[in-house]
């Protein structure tokens, strides 16, 4: 190692050390977080709870595997060992009276792909995946486009 090389290495390490020590300071000033401007040691006052869409109209899924949104209020619905109030309308036998969509048949499958007589325990807690849509602004900017738009874009590129 020549003198010049050693000097360069020291310089690089020094710059790295500086970057590591300085970055939290920089981050604190420039990175926007969901916390807003409240100092870390204090609690921000939470925003008001947004009302949920209660239109009873089914929403488009952004991708086929998306758990469908719940298009109605679910305040106080009991889902526990004793009762599942979602299933009082959405179970296989209840839909004739309720005219609600039946729980997907995939929810009857055990993890070994065996169909059970009723909803499997791993799919029992509906709101692990299904949620109502809050009437609120996006917290962060979201540039998501669905597959149809991607395909359209690709075919547009090919045409040119």
């Amino acid at each position: 190692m020549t003198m010049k090389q050693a000097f360069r290495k020291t310089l690089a390490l020094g710059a790295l050390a500086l970057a590591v020590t300085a970055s939290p300071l920089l981050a604190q000033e420039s990175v926007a977080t969901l916390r807003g401007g409240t100092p870390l040691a204090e609690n921000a006052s939470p925003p008001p709870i947004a009302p949920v869409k209660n239109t009873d109209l089914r929403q488009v899924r952004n991708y086929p595997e998306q758990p469908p949104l719940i298009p109605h209020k679910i305040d106080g619905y009991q889902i526990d060992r004793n009762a599942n109030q979602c299933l009082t309308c959405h179970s296989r036998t209840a839909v004739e009276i309720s005219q609600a969509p039946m729980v997907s048949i995939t929810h009857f499958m055990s993890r070994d792909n065996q169909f059970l007589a009723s909803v499997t325990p791993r799919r029992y807690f509906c709101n692990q995946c299904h949620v109502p849509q809050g009437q609120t602004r996006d917290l962060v900017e979201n540039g998501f486009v669905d597959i149809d738009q991607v395909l359209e874009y690709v075919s547009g590129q090919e045409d040119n």
Partner: protein
Amino acid sequence: MFGFLRRTWGVIKRPSVHYSLGALTMGGFIMGIVFWGGFNTALEVTNTEAFCTSCHEMRDNVFEELKPTIHYSNRSGVRATCPDCHVPHDWTNKIARKMQASKEVWGKIFGTINTREKFLEHRLTLAQNEWSRLEANDSLECRNCHSAESMDITRQSKRASEAHERFLFTGEKTCINCHKGIAHELPDLGQAGLLNGH
């Protein structure tokens, strides 16, 4: 026995010797007010939320469960207390219910549900008692406040208005058939044979 009855009847039939007619009628009138007023006051005292929640069985179980529901806290601040749903408002029915409640006094004295475990064990039976009572009286206590005539279904969500048109207005079902578990937690519906609702 027969002699005793005859003697009593003799006393009642004979005119009063020491008291004037005025004193007797006024005394009777005043005592009537005192007794009737006292009875009604006592009845009303037992018909308050404070009375119901003075026992830990109600305060720690069902009352706690009521608190997060719409019948306890809501946007307009109107609220239902225990007797609004569990005791008929009409006098005759109220007295009938109060007489049935003597069994609940028995349960209190002998501690039928004096622990959380015992309460959970009895939850299904207790719920079924109330469900069958409300089914039998066409959800009378619900209808003390909620009337089908005043229900503006255009102000309801699509789902709610359709259900009310199909089942409530036709008289096919009564409130409690669909609205179980709105004020307290549901018992094990599998045991109740109600797993699939309605």
